[in-house]
């Protein structure tokens, strides 16, 4: 059980919260959460017409016979996040990081347990709302409105967003359709739009990996700034460096279980030992097959 290392961590302060009542305000309480994906079209028949028919006819019978596979992506995870914390989520591919993040954002249902939040946590990302055929300028407005900003707020921040993205550094590109942008430029604009809003609880999924070196630096700064305004920041990343630079607490998920929860240095040291040193050993244990969560993370 992953609980043992977790017990010696700041999360444990919840039980000791009585001693320091005023200082720490929880913003996210994750309480024994399980998340299970059910994937259709697996097993016998591999999604053929007969298998689909079979699934419809025997709907109420066993899921396995109907070709539905259960993927237990997150297993009994509990932690408390406090205002002002920046929490890194680490773990090897397919360990449930993005899934947990989506559940905290309220975009995925949990199987067991509850997630309590202060306000509405938001995933940093507006990619889905933007349209490649529209100009950068219109996308700034569209993305802002999609995140729930008012027109006045966007107008106020507009110049800031464009300057931050650096789109206009090499000419007047903001009035061109986004499909004409290089992938790096588009990624920078997306991050700039998403980061324009102040969030109560901000969830960032590997957004720092976009753009060139100077933009990465700027985005790290912006995350730090958001963290000051916002309550709590969650960051999913495979870059131990950006976790070190931005987070003061780290949750380590492995195969859906919370393996460790503690100050950045302690957890990263263990994690690096796990991934860096005995590399072969890590590969010897194949991660649970998990098509669904990664597909969601790409959105």
């Amino acid at each position: 059980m992953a609980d043992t290392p977790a017990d010696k961590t700041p999360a444990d302060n919840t039980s000791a919260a009585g001693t320091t009542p005023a200082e720490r305000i929880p913003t996210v309480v994750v309480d024994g959460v399980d998340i299970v994906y059910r994937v259709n079209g697996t097993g016998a028949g591999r999604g053929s017409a007969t298998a689909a028919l079979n699934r419809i006819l025997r709907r109420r019978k066993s899921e396995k016979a109907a070709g539905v596979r259960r993927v237990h992506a997150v297993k009994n995870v509990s932690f408390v996040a406090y205002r002002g914390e920046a929490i890194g989520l680490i773990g090897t591919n397919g360990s449930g990081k993005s899934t947990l993040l989506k559940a905290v954002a309220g975009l995925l249902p949990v199987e067991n347990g509850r997630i309590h939040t202060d306000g509405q946590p938001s995933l940093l990302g507006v990619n889905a709302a933007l349209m490649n055929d529209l100009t950068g300028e219109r996308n700034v407005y569209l993305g802002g409105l999609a995140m729930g900003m008012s027109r006045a707020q966007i107008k106020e921040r507009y110049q800031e967003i464009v300057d931050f993205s650096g789109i206009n550094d090499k000419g007047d590109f903001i009035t061109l359709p986004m499909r004409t942008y290089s992938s790096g430029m588009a990624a920078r604009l997306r991050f700039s739009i998403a980061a324009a809003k102040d969030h109560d609880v901000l969830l960032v999924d590997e957004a720092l990996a976009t753009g060139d070196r100077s933009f990465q630096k700027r985005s790290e700064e912006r995350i730090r700034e958001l963290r000051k305004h916002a309550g709590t920041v969650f960051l999913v990343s495979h870059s131990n460096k950006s976790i070190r630079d931005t987070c003061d607490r780290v949750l380590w998920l492995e195969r859906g279980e919370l393996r460790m929860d503690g100050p950045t240095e302690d957890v990263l040291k263990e994690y690096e030992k796990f991934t860096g040193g005995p590399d072969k050993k890590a590969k010897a244990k194949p991660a649970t097959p998990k098509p669904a969560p990664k597909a969601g993370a790409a959105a």
Partner: protein
Amino acid sequence: MSQVLHTPPPTPKAPATATAGTSPAGHDLAALAARHGLSVSGARPSLPEYVRQLWARRHFIGAFSTAKLTAQYSQAKLGQVWQVMTPLLNAAVYYFIFGVLMNTRRGVEDYVPFLVTGVFVWTFTQSSIMAGTRAISGNLGLVRALHFPRAALPVSFCLQQLQQLLFSMAALAVILLAFGVPPAVSWVLAVPALVLQFLFNAGVAMVMARVGSRIPDMAQLMPFLLRTWMYGSGVMFSIHHMTGPDSNVPSWVGTLLQANPAAVYIDLMRFALIDSFDGSMLPDHVWALALGWALVAGIGGFIYFWKAEETYGRG
């Protein structure tokens, strides 16, 4: 790949039972959350709250529909000119086939205006419902990434179709004048007819959005259902003439066909715009019918859609 996530049972079993060793922690966490007034993530808002949230997102709904409309022709050289060109060309094709080649009037005066009005008004309902069917299932990326009342999507797609129709109506006015239909005060009646039709479309689109989010296969089935509906709604012919006293169709068939919402809205528009299409061709209580359909579909569809709000984006 299709992936189904079932909604959790309303009362999840206490986590304390699962973690026997650390059982007090479970209670502590729930109590801690309650003490600081945290809300449960991903719960469905109450109906008035939902309406309020939707209203707060009205600018997004407007911007999204306009953006979709604009993006449609942004790759074309003529650009937005196609907004008017497309309905005009459509009308030209119908004129060529029915007006010139077949020279068919089927006992209808001003047949070309009659036909073009019917096609445009029907297209509004048809494409709203089609877009509604895909509103959730076709925008899962958006639904899974951002928080907003999901009803914003079907409503916004219907709004896009309404804007499209307004371009068509401009083209229609030109066609009416070209075919010698005089402009009249009754043209103003097009406005309430359109408002009611929009309400009806939005309601049906919301119903279909919920159905389509659960059963994506509906998008494959809908074109056939819609085409059947079209033939029953008198788009190309006059129900009034086909089922009139001198035809051998029982009269209740005509009454039934004429009371169907698509036929009601099409006939109202023809009544408003075309001089020779007079009140005697309309079914009884036509405005009451139009209003009734709009309210039943609009309110019913909205509530039906809201009932599954927390499940969207998970199927």
